[in-house]
């Protein structure tokens, strides 16, 4: 592995574990990051010549810790720097030692690293930016491009987020079982945020689309350190199954294609297979949770050979479970769609009625309502609802999609 691109991949793969351990040593995010950077520079210098170490993360922790201590010493102007060749001469034996030192902390280190990005004081956008920077190690310019903001604005956002996290105090003690369990939900939510930032962006640049891949990577990582948590399996299955549809969600003009109109041959079968396999593992635990139920719904879509083969009655039942587990008007809205498919537009509209107040400012609500009203033949009311939806659209693609629906209404006008 002497190719720089592959060294880069290995460094990225080792990053969460190495950063997590360095953060535990130095108890300071900036020092840990600098130490990790320094270790990476040395890796780039020494690996091509000596070959990659057997355990890159352990190597980076060992070298990073030494270089971090150097920096601290240098700043304190007390001791001379140790010889650099001693560091780059790391044998596998030393790396193994570092590995033994750290494997017991492995899980908590990574969890802590993820958890500090989910501080409740941080708004969602800052959580995502911080996670991408700290956990994934994505450079500020790329994060800025993914968020469509300037580099300096993103730099500021991340600096502010770091300051807020530092001020709140980082949780360094090894967590007790209950704390560990408490840290999991916000971390899962953060991973889903990262995913949605990429998924909801519309036709996207590679930098935006990479957010979904990154979320999948973080999901797998979290499941590796919590292999028996059904909700973590549910989360990973959910994002795999949703991401599998990415190739079919927009047409060549960049317009949104509804699930029922998507060309299913464009769905990523491999990702679907993995999502279904992980969901099967989750279901075996018989501890349903919101991510698992949402993944199960996505799985029913993935399993349907065509839109008309979709098991809407089963999807309705799953949304009912979701309404119990995590009640929200948006869940009921989604259920209304399933009900309308299974039992007709009228039944769906009945479910929508009580949601008007809560979801009046929500694009999707008016879009769905318009479509159901149109199906029920209430053209004028449908037109009003579509008008509201256009006013609330989050992206040009969403607005364009509703305009199409409106055009279709107009086409039917002479007949009605």
């Amino acid at each position, binding site marked *: 592995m002497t*190719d720089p691109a592959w060294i880069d991949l290995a460094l990225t*793969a080792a990053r969460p574990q190495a950063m997590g351990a360095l953060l535990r040593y130095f108890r300071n995010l900036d020092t840990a990051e600098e130490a990790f950077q320094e270790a990476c520079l040395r890796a780039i210098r020494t690996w091509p010549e000596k070959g990659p170490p057997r355990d890159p993360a352990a190597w980076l922790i060992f070298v990073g810790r030494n270089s971090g201590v150097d920096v601290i010493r240098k700043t304190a102007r007390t001791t001379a720097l140790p010889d650099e060749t001693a560091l780059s001469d790391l044998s596998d034996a030393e790396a193994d030692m570092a590995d033994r030192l750290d494997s017991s902390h492995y899980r908590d280190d990574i969890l802590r690293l993820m958890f500090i990005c989910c501080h409740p004081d941080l708004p969602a956008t800052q959580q995502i930016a911080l996670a991408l920077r700290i956990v994934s190690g994505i450079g500020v310019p790329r994060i800025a491009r993914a968020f469509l903001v300037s580099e300096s604005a993103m730099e500021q956002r991340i600096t502010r987020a770091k300051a807020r996290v530092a001020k709140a105090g980082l949780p360094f003690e090894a967590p007790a079982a209950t704390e560990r369990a408490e840290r999991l939900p916000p971390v899962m939510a953060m991973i889903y945020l990262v995913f949605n930032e990429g998924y909801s962006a519309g036709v996207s640049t590679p930098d935006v689309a990479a957010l979904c891949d990154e979320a999948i990577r973080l999901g797998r990582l979290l499941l590796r350190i919590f292999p028996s948590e059904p909700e973590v399996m549910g989360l990973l299955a959910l994002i795999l199954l949703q991401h599998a549809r990415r190739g079919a969600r927009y047409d060549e003009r960049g317009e949104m294609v509804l699930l029922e109109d998507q060309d299913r041959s464009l769905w990523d079968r491999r990702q679907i297979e993995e999502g279904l396999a992980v969901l099967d593992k989750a279901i075996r635990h018989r501890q349903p949770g919101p991510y698992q139920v949402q993944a199960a719904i996505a799985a029913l879509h993935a399993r349907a050979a065509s839109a008309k083969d979709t098991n809407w009655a089963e999807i309705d039942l799953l949304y009912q479970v979701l309404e119990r587990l995590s009640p929200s008007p948006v869940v009921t809205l989604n259920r209304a769609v399933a009900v309308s498919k299974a039992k007709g537009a009228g039944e769906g509209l009945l479910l929508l009625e009580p949601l008007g107040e809560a979801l009046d400012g929500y694009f999707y609500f008016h879009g769905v309502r318009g479509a159901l009203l149109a199906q029920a033949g209430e053209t004028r009311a449908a037109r009003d609802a579509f008008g509201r939806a256009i006013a609330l659209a989050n992206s040009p693609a969403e607005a364009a999609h509703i305009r199409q629906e409106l055009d279709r209404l107009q086409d039917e006008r002479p007949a009605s």
Partner: protein
Amino acid sequence: MLYAILCYADEETVFAWSKEEEAAVMGRLYAVQEPLAQAGKLGPTGRLMPTTAATTVRKGKEEPIVLDGPFAETKEALLGFYTVDVETLDEAVAFARQLSSVNPGSTAYEIRPFYVFHPGSVTG
């Protein structure tokens, strides 16, 4: 002699491959297998999902228990396998060497002879 050639690699790195990298590596690996396949020396091959998709059934005190995840938590995970029917170990080593040289990851190929081999009837 029939051998299984088991591919171990750091899955964090392998599953971080981009689509293009993935396609390039797979293309090179197929090219290496082709002559063996032509010679009728290549049996079933397979590529495995990440260990997060794995489940392990282990003998418990009374009855087998079902565990989530791979059998062993190792730095390098079993990610794929080949079966080859070759004359000598040298030939198997040469094949594994070729696989290794076109695979950019830090992979290890374990060459293990079969006692028993049933090709089975699954077509995949």
